[in-house]
């Protein structure tokens, strides 16, 4: 198996190198990278069969020793290796499948772009990095993958590097992620300090064997306060997840990342990279389970993100930004699941979300091409008749997103709400309210978007209307391929993922935190029927109803409401002021500090006072002392006599 894993990881890297560095033709670039990712996907299917269907034990091996600290008895190795268990196998399948679809789609989407080869090189490099991240068996390699996907995200957001907005957005994305990584790295340092290793198996083994010890151990960060090391470690690690998975307040980079080409919004900023934080926390479940406080923190952050980012989706008019806010909100749902100890439900939602959100983004991309790069939904409408395939797959994606049965999102979202309802952790009540009300909001903004784009009056100008282009094959095939799991993934996966023993050994949940019990489960169909008697479904239905009323029946009403709730509207348009605050406080503050330290610290004090000052002092002293050397003999004689007198005086008294 080791060779298979190596091929899965290295094939996309090779593809990226060939497409990026060797000045190849467009044809070669996409053939090589699609071929490479295709191989990775097929082999990931083999792995899926091997690990999940056949239930073989996890693979955990070291590839090479990155470096060793010291030698003899005082040594510590840092290694690179793979851990492939059920959790990893699922992530590998998601990553390679969505990546393959995006590769194919890109052939059509980036058809006229001069940076064609570069783009393929980047997305293949991304696939490599993401696979390294999910297949890692230690914190070091995790961090490597973590930063590498961040790098590719940076490169892709700024893909059109002549656009000022794009290169602003990519710098912002990188720096905000670095704030998260700052916490993450400290968390890793803490893991090494208290658990003595960076290898997952060793760390989790140590923690489980010394549960009592690590739960009682404390760290003294501020004199007088003792904090549990588990809480501090988990919160630090989670800060990393907040950066990558765009949780409030580190979410600010994700909406701006829409400056990148649409295929990468689907691949990186919806389906895979942004879910790395969710994956990481699920992977670290043996640590998180030992800190109620950290889990409450996770729960509350997730709930805030799920609800408040959903609101923002209501007022956006850029098709991609609506989907982006919806991604933020859904990431919040996943985080809530983690916080409620329902890691499996979080991963389940990650799994279904990857398909339907990639689908929605790619469909949005298809709309954008058809509209000749118009992204404002106020200038769309009635597109159903021009692009039927896109219409139908978008409908599937939207229904999956709002959690309509029997689409994939229904099962995963219901599971999360179920888990939160059963949690008695601090913050769970708030989280329950947030995710429940969030369902309404999700349905509202999703169908607002859907109706405004595909139904109603055709609001584009005449010129655009005449040139609406159909959807080429390379674009619609991936859409259909993603639509299939958007329908089916939920019903097939819910049993094994939530109620089966699929994640045994990969995800660890304290017995008392279990939200899903195999006895309560009687097949996906009954789960669905049960859903009809639950609140969430009716909240979703209400959302669709309101959207229908506002945007189909009474299309003038939204403007009226906007006028009525002016303050609320401006807060939402202002995105709660996060960007303004960050620009003023962090960006502006840093520039100010930098200027002050430079101008007054370095220039004025160190150079001005000390360096040049001492030079001036020497100059002044010399020029003063110079007057003593007059050249007149009697002056010198006088000085000698004076000196003699002083010396005599000293001797005598």
């Amino acid at each position, binding site marked *: 198996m080791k060779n298979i894993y190596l091929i899965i990881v290295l094939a996309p890297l090779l593809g990226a190198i060939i497409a990026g560095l060797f000045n190849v033709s467009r044809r070669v670039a996409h053939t090589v990278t699609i071929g490479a990712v295709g191989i990775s996907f097929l082999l990931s299917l083999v792995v899926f069969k091997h690990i999940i269907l056949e239930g073989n034990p996890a693979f955990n091996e070291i590839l*090479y*020793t*990155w*470096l*060793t*600290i*010291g*030698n*003899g*008895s*005082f*040594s*510590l190795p840092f290694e690179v290796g793979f851990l492939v268990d059920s959790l990893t196998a699922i992530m590998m399948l998601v990553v390679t499948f969505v990546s393959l679809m995006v590769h194919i789609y890109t052939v059509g989407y980036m058809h006229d772009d001069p940076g064609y080869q570069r783009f393929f090189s980047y997305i293949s490099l991304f696939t490599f990095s993401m696979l390294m991240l999910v297949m890692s068996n230690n914190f*070091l390699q995790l*961090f*490597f993958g973590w*930063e*590498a996907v961040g*790098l590719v995200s*940076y*490169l892709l957001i*700024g893909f059109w*590097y*002549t656009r*000022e907005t794009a*290169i*602003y957005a990519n*710098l912002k994305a*990188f*720096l905000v992620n*670095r*704030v998260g*990584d*700052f916490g993450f*790295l*400290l968390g*890793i*340092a*803490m893991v*090494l*300090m208290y658990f*003595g290793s960076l290898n997952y198996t060793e760390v989790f083994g140590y923690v489980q064997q010394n549960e009592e010890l690590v739960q009682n151990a404390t*760290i003294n*960060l501020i004199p007088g306060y003792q904090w549990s090391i588990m809480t501090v470690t988990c919160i630090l690690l989670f800060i990393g997840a907040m950066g990558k998975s765009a949780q409030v307040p580190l979410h600010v980079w994700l909406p701006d990342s829409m400056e990148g080409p649409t295929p990468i919004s689907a691949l990186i900023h919806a389906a895979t990279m942004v879910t790395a934080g969710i994956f990481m926390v699920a992977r670290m479940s043996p640590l998180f389970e030992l800190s109620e406080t950290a889990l409450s923190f996770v729960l509350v952050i997730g709930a805030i993100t799920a609800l408040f980012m959903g609101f923002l989706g209501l007022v956006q008019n850029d098709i991609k930004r609506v989907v982006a806010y919806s991604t933020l909100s859904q990431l919040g749902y996943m985080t809530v699941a983690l916080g409620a100890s329902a890691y499996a439900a979080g991963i389940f939602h990650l799994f279904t979300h990857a398909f339907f959100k990639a689908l929605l983004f790619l469909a949005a991309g298809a709309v954008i091409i058809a509209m000749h790069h118009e992204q404002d939904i106020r200038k769309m409408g009635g597109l159903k008749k021009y692009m039927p395939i896109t219409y139908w797959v978008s409908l599937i994606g939207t229904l999956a997103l709002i959690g309509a049965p029997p689409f994939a999102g229904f099962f995963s979202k219901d599971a999360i709400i179920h888990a939160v309802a059963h949690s008695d952790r601090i913050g769970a009540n708030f989280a329950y309210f947030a995710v429940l009300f969030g369902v309404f909001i999700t349905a509202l903004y999703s169908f607002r978007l859907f109706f405004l784009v595909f139904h109603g009056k055709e609001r584009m100008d005449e010129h655009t209307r005449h040139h609406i282009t159909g959807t080429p094959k390379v674009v619609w095939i991936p859409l259909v391929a993603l639509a299939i799991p958007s329908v089916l993934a939920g019903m097939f996966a819910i049993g094994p993922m939530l109620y089966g023993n699929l994640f045994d050994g990969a995800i660890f949940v304290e017995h008392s935190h279990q939200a899903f019990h195999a006895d309560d489960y009687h097949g996906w169909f009954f789960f669905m029927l049960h859903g009809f008697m639950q609140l969430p479904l009716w909240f979703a239905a209400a959302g669709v109803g309101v959207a229908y009323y506002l945007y189909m029946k009474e299309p003038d009403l939204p403007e009226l409401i906007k006028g009525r709730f002016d303050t609320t509207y401006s807060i939402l348009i202002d995105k709660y002021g996060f960007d303004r605050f960050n620009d003023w406080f962090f960006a502006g503050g*840093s*520039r100010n*500090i*930098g*200027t002050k*330290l*430079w101008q007054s*610290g*370095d220039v004025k004090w*160190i*150079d001005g006072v*000390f*360096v040049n000052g001492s030079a001036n002092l020497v100059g002044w002293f010399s020029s003063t002392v110079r007057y003593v050397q007059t050249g007149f003999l009697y002056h010198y004689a006088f000085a000698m006599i004076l000196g003699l007198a002083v010396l005599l005086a000293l001797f005598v008294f």
Partner: protein
Amino acid sequence: MLTDLPLLNLPLLSLLVWLPILGGIWVLMTAGKDDAVARPIALLISVLVFFLSLLLYIGFDTQTADMQFMEKHAWITTFQIYYHLGVDGISMPLIILTTFSTVLVILAGWEVIQSKVAQYLAAFLFMEGLMIGVFAALDAMLFYVLWEAMLVPMFVIIGIWGGARRIYATIKFFLYTFLGSVLMLVALLYLYSQADSFAILDFHKLIIPLDIQKFIFLAFFAAFAVKVPMWPVHTWLPDAHVEAPTGGSVILAAIMLKLGAYGFLRFSLPITPDASRELDWFIIGLSLIAVVYIGFVALMQQDMKKLIAYSSISHMGFVTLGFFIAFKILANPDLTNEAAMTTATMGIEGGIVQMISHGFISGALFLCVGVLYDRLHSRQIADYGGVANVMPRFALFAVLFGMANSGLPATSGFVGEFLVILSSFQANFWIAFLAAMTLILGAAYTLWMIKRVIFGKIGNDKVATLTDINARETFFLTVLAIAVLFFGLYPAPLLDVMHTTVQNLLVHIAQSKVI
């Protein structure tokens, strides 16, 4: 077996010191004739010296902490001064870094330097020999003489081939470093009076009372802190870099700064371990100021070279932090002896890795600025913009080295910072916290510069006329890129040579020298 090579029986270190110097004289003799002769000769010599230095790696025994490739000849017998050379796991990699950088610098100046070519190349060859001598010297007087002699070629390089304010910069550079090293001379003379020998290894064995240790420590500090440079004696560096020609900046950043850090390891730590332990907070404090304060200052620089210079100071903060955090770790009562020794090793080894890595990365960044400067004759960020449009190949390298400077994993820039942050955590959460600020600050100042210079629309008409890097420039940037990526992906070979030496040093400094 490679270790049986007959070449290894040559007096390798002497060859490495004298071959460049004699070569420099040869190059100098061609002065005034044809520049086309001087360049290939200089290149030939530097390449030869580089390959010779690789023999040090091949023949190096990683199992012993003793000095290797030792040579000892009487020099000034009245004062027991010897011509005494040798290397251990700390100095050996630095010597190879020196020979490597010299080749690149000679290539970098190939078409660019048109006036006094022979003298320019000779100055770099002299410098190479002298710097190797400093790293290899085991006699304190020999060390001191070479240490001071090294200033002369650098003084000349900046003073003759430098920019407009070169005289101010050279004098500042000279006075700063010279004043520092005079105090070191006093300390060395005192140590001689105690040990009755100028052998550095004899100094290591001296028993010295704590008060005197502190004076000696501070005297060494004056010399080394200026070279590193540490805050607040760093202000000569931005000026020197700005005025120096590209080659001068590369050598300054890649090698000369390392000499200060090397001095801490060779002199301060082993000779005055108790004073180092007593004053560790002082060095750690200054190192953190370097990381944070200088990081903020770097953010606001308008001149690319100044920005990289400040970035160098900030990155060198990790070196001194890694060295001195070892004392805090050893004193941490929460750690077992084993954990403390391991993580203290991690700090020191992390610091050394950072030295090597910074040599590559800062060298590469200065070369990148040089590439732009050769074309537009400006170092101001504002004079560029959208360079990627006209120089895509160059942009690839600039972004790669920018990322390495931001400490991205898989580049060498990550390794040292990662190890030093991990080990600082073992001493104190807040030290690690401040050190880890570099993750944000380093990325901010580097990538903001990249954004303004490389990305965006073509900034002005001059930028539109830029031509992409030629084969020669591609070659030296590729070599550096390979080095940066190789040691990022597989740093083990670099660390493996230093384990025994570093652990021997740690055992040595863990023992008190005060009776």
